């Protein structure tokens, strides 16, 4: 028992800890990942904005040179394509981060480009929209230059426009910085997650260890009055649970005692009620010997000197008294409250005893009682008194149900290796279908007021079920009813070596 209990404790311990780790850890890791993602996106935007501002500043500085060159070329046409291209080439040489430069006039015609990759290649960087109203940027993957941060710089002074410069900067440094940031946040998230899981594991272990202790104590506790759970350290949460558990156990003990008292009273009440219903038959069984005794006493009084007759009559009186004693003993035996519920019952013997008690009443009503009880039945695991009470109640119900000349049958046989079945059936009025569902409820009766307590079947069911058996009814209205109950076989009988 303890091994099973402790195995359960271990399972509960592992399962609870695993759930705490799984769910709390999952939520924390998902939160960390989300925070990392948000941080990464925002940080990436900052990196891009910073790089964009830097290249715009460089482009604006370069645009001064370009404007100067454009104005010079404008004033001295002979120098056209010389000053501007030189400025572009110098710029490309001076800044390695610059991938390309192209200068276009307001109509979009290229004035200078660099570098020229091949003779027939259209210079790159002029594919963006030619906005002249501000500085524009974009980042894209160029097939020739890789990732490029392109700046589109209008070459304007006031309303005077000389065109626009498109300058492509290498954007790989941005990606490299984002990559480093990603790795940093990824590793940070992993480390924080690992630390969090370890802390969670320790907390969960500590919590479940306390719970395990409580469960172990609970498994160890028997609901025997006076047995307290083990004392724990005061102030501990588990100690509080222990205390509450102890109080609950005491309340259960009190309730159980009250229930046992109530059941005992119900059994007794039902038994007395049954005795009352048997009283007429018993009175008849007592009355006949008494009449015989009275006749014998009358004869002895008439002829006191007739010694032989007197001796004979005294013998008859003795037999009559013995007969009365037998009836009274049976009645007392039935009326005696059972002190214990354990025991073993010879079903055949006890069934016949009950039938004997009923013999007179059955004959008065000309009811035919058939006993079909196998002689080799093993004893049932039930106190004989309780068995007698069950059969008595069922027989009383059948007696009430059948009319004059009806028949009642008591059958007892072995059901299987483990149990016996006892059935009491009659050919009486039967039980309505709607009543069958309620027939085992306490105080439910179809008899007239004063004829029944409504407790008989309820008590029978309680007794049978408390012995691990089952009581059931089958009936068709107008065609009788059969009450059948299963009882376990007394195992000591099956295992004589025990």
């Amino acid at each position, binding site marked *: 028992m303890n091994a099973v209990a402790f195995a359960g404790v271990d*399972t509960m311990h*592992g*399962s609870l800890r*695993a759930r705490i780790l*799984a769910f709390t850890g*999952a939520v924390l890791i998902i939160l960390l990942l989300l925070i990392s*993602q948000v941080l*990464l*996106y925002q940080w*990436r935007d900052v990196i*891009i904005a910073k790089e*964009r501002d830097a290249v*715009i500043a460089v482009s604006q500085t370069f645009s*001064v040179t370009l*404007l*100067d060159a454009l*104005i*010079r070329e404008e*004033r*001295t046409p002979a120098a056209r394509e010389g000053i501007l291209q030189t400025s572009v080439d110098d710029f490309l040489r001076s800044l390695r981060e610059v991938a390309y430069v192209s200068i276009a006039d307001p109509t979009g015609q290229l004035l200078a480009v660099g570098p020229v990759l091949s003779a027939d290649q259209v210079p790159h960087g002029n594919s*963006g*929209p030619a*906005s*002249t*109203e*501000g*500085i*524009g*940027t*974009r*980042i*894209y*993957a160029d097939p020739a230059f890789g*990732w490029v941060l392109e700046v*589109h710089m*209008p070459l*304007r*002074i*006031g*309303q*005077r*426009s000389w065109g626009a410069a498109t300058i492509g900067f290498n*954007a790989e440094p*941005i*990606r490299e910085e*984002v*990559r480093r940031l*990603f790795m940093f946040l*990824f590793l940070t998230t992993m480390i924080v997650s690992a630390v969090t899981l370890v802390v969670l594991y320790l907390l969960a272990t500590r919590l479940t260890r306390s719970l395990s202790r409580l469960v172990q104590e609970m498994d160890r506790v028997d609901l025997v009055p006076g047995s307290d759970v083990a004392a724990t350290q005061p102030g501990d949460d588990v100690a509080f649970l222990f205390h509450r558990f102890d109080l609950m156990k005491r309340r259960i003990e009190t309730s159980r005692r009250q229930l046992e008292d109530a059941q005992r009273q119900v059994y007794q009440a039902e038994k007395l009620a049954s005795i009352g219903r048997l009283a007429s038959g018993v009175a008849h069984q007592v009355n006949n010997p008494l009449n015989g005794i009275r006749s014998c006493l009358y004869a002895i009084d008439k002829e006191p000197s007739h010694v032989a007759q007197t001796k004979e009559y005294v013998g008859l009186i003795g037999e009559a008294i013995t007969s009365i004693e037998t009836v009274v003993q049976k009645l007392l035996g039935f009326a005696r409250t059972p002190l214990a519920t354990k025991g073993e019952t010879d079903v055949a013997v006890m069934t016949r005893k009950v039938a004997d008690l009923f013999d007179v009443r059955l004959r008065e009503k000309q009811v035919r009682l058939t006993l079909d009880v196998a002689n080799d039945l093993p004893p049932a695991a039930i106190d004989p008194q309780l068995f007698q009470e069950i059969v008595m109640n069922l027989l009383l119900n059948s007696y009430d149900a059948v009319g004059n000349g009806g028949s009642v049958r008591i059958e007892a046989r072995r059901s299987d290796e483990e149990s016996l079945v006892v059935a009491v059936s009659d050919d009486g009025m039967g039980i309505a279908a709607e009543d069958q569902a309620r027939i085992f409820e306490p105080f439910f009766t179809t008899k007239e007021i004063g004829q029944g307590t409504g407790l008989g079947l309820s008590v029978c069911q309680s007794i049978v079920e408390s012995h691990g058996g089952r009581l059931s009814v089958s009936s068709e209205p107008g065609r009788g009813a059969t009450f059948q109950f299963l009882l376990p076989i007394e195992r000591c009988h099956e295992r004589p070596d025990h």
Partner: protein
Amino acid sequence: MHREPDQAHAIPRITRRWALWLIAVSAGLSLSTIVFYSIVMDVSQPYAVVVKGDAIDPTAASKPVVRIAVISRYPPTVTFRGYQPIMDYLTARTPYRFELLLGSDYAEALQHLLSGKAAAVFLGSYLYARERERADIIPILKPLNEQGEAVTRSVLFVRSTSTARAIGDLRGRRLALPSAESYSANWAVAELLPSNGLAEGGLAAVQNFAHHHTVIAKVLNGSFDAGITREHLIKDLVGSSIRVIATSVPIPSPPIVVRRTETPAVIAAIREALLEVGRDEERRRILTKDWDIEFVHGFAPAAAEDYEPVRRWR
């Protein structure tokens, strides 16, 4: 016969289940990390205007073009930065579209006016005074200085670290001059140097440069010991990197000049628009924030007589 599995070697079911979960979660996390990595590393961004500039005036293209020439007192880019906003203002305020026409030197700017390529010219005071008798030209406007007066001055300056405290200390040193057509250069050559005994061989070198800015740069970088330029151009440098050791008398500020035969409507448009600049102080400050510093205080009407002192001095 039913045979129980070998419990000693069988993996407990709960362990197998957790292991499967662990593998599934790890695989999911790994896959999502790879996908997320590829998403994050795609830094592509569509084209977007990030620094908004001034909108192009769509009505300007349909207006008749009027060109205004500028003498080459500054480098071309500096000239455009300081004068193009004035052209834009005139375009916005008049029925004409004004364009700058830069001269490669002072004479070419005047030639643009005389040939009719330009309707007006930002001329120097000395050049106007010299040419007014030969060409049929008239001044229409002259810029105001910070005190609201239509006068300017030329200055002789040295680096603040220079030991020269007076003009006499420049003997044997190098002097940078602006264009020979400018008032500043002529003031130095004709008046300042002779009156201080430095006219003939008193200096180690005297050289003219096309632009005032070049003169300032030459002195600041040590190529020359002193330079002559306009007072307002070094205003922000005086006290920090430049020290002024001589100043000319006030002369009328350089005029905007037109041919007498120029279309009166064009002359009136230029005159009215530029005179209006200084009428509202708050509006002037906003309007002229990108203008050449010489014109930010507005204009005053100019007349040929205003330049009589320069002509007489010449």
